[in-house]
């Protein structure tokens, strides 16, 4: 029998160390999860490669890869910040993991910080893979990197807010179904791979206000057209981010 010193020696490590430990744990769990990888890496890369290398879709003038890369980047953000986070957190809530972690020294704000860092870390991996594939396919990016970063961060905040709102209010099975449905719908009508201007103009004018469309169009205006500051898309994303995070903060239930 192994001797264990069970005598009390309580004490927590500083908060940043707890947050980093939780982040490392969550990133490893995400990268090991086959369904998550399908959603976050394989589908975006397949869409990018397939539609860049073939003329299955009429994407308008210009290189197809220049049109597709910003859309696929937006899709990648949505898949991680919204779909993956909603499903993962929904099941953690259902199985009492959030409650269990609530009994450890890691505070709730620390857990949210770790989840945010996890999303950003996975997005960084996605961006590296997608940009590398795009460059191989002959992509030539333009524009201001800071605008790109601002769009990605605000898009992440908007999608995270609604992902957590869904995870914290619906049953886990309902979250699973709804998050996948929203993913497919927004993929189809959000200007990711099908240009918005193929929709009737009245419909397109409404679709432009979707977070995925604002992110895809904003990234496209900078990366493909070299626009300086995509004010409209940033404003739309800011609106979604504020609404989503406020609703999540108000309605999220931990158990």
């Amino acid at each position, binding site marked *: 029998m192994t001797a264990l010193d*069970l005598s*009390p020696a*309580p004490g927590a490590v500083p908060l940043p160390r707890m947050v980093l*430990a939780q982040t490392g744990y969550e990133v490893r769990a995400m990268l090991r999860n086959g369904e998550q990888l399908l959603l976050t890496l394989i589908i975006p890369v397949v869409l990018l490669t397939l539609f860049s290398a073939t003329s299955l879709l009429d994407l308008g003038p210009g290189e197809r890869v220049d049109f597709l890369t910003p859309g696929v980047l937006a899709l990648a953000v949505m898949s991680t910040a919204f779909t993956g986070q909603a499903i993962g957190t929904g099941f953690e809530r259902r*199985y009492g*993991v959030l409650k269990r972690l609530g009994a*450890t020294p890691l505070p709730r704000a620390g857990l949210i910080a770790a989840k945010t860092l996890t999303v950003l870390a996975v997005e960084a991996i996605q961006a590296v893979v997608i940009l590398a594939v795009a460059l191989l396919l002959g992509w030539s990016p333009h524009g201001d990197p800071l605008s790109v970063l601002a769009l990605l961060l605000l898009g992440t905040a908007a999608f995270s807010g609604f992902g957590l709102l869904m995870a914290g209010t619906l049953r886990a099975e309902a979250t699973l179904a709804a998050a996948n449905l929203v993913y497919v719908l927004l993929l189809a009508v959000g200007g990711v791979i099908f240009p918005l201007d193929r929709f009737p103009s009245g419909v397109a004018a409404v679709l432009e206000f979707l977070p995925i469309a604002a992110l895809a169009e904003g990234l496209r205006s900078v990366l493909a057209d070299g626009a300086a500051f995509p004010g409209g898309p940033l404003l739309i994303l800011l609106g979604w981010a504020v609404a989503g995070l406020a609703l999540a903060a108000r309605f999220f239930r931990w158990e």
Partner: protein
Amino acid sequence: MAPPDDLAVALDDLAKRYGGTPAVDGLSLRARRGEVTALLGPNGAGKTTTIEICEGFRRADAGTVRVLGRDPVADARALKPRVGVMPQSGGVPGTARGGEFLRLVASFHRAPLDSAALLERLGLAEHARTPFRRLSGGQQQRLSLAVAVVGRPELVFLDEPTTGLDPQARHATWDLVRELRDAGVSVVLTTHHMDEAERLADHVVIIDRGRVVADGTPAELTGAERQLRFRARAALDLEELLGALPPGSAAKESPAGHYLVEGDLRPELLATVTAWCAAHGVLTEDLRIERRTLEDVFLELTGRELRG
């Protein structure tokens, strides 16, 4: 009453309702530091609600709660590192490897136990890389216990720690609980197994319908009274047996063929019973004199079976 410093948990007039139904209804109890306190009661008695209020997961509707002298909700930040929690089930991600989750929780603490040694101690070493959902129910329970104690807490709350365990795993859990107590850790656990409470606890609090119906050491609760039990063929004439016994004795048959004699249990009484049996050609089996069990105490206090 002990001064507050000696108390791991102090609850006064605690009340909690779900909808209109009271789960906890004016419950007061004390759990001393360095002791194992068992909350014993049938399912639905309010044990889990009580323990979850102590853990800070729920707020009481009324009453005061002190855990290590602090308020579990208002002082949560200060209390979490000092208190270990084993919930009734789950709480570990289904896809997580057990050892990995244990190391994660250990990494939140300043001087945690060695995760590998703890897993080995609980017989889980070869399952360290198994996803939680593929562990058996008993293995999941033991991992959950490991997570509760890995941070070297001063106080642990264990909600039904041995439910679903095979006898061997149950004894391993009991051994660890005793070792925790011997190392100076306060333990508060819930159980509906009276033998668990009897064997493990320094202090037993019997809870029924959200209230404390009795508390004390197992010996205090079961008292000094002894009783005589034996088995024999069904439907002996107990009226006649009682006539042979000293006044104030009682005898009953329940279930058929199982007999219980209560009264002033001196050697003469035992001799009278066996002589009466011999005179009637009755061979007794399993004849024994024992103290009352907590089961008897519970039945007496509430009129119901503990396992009912």
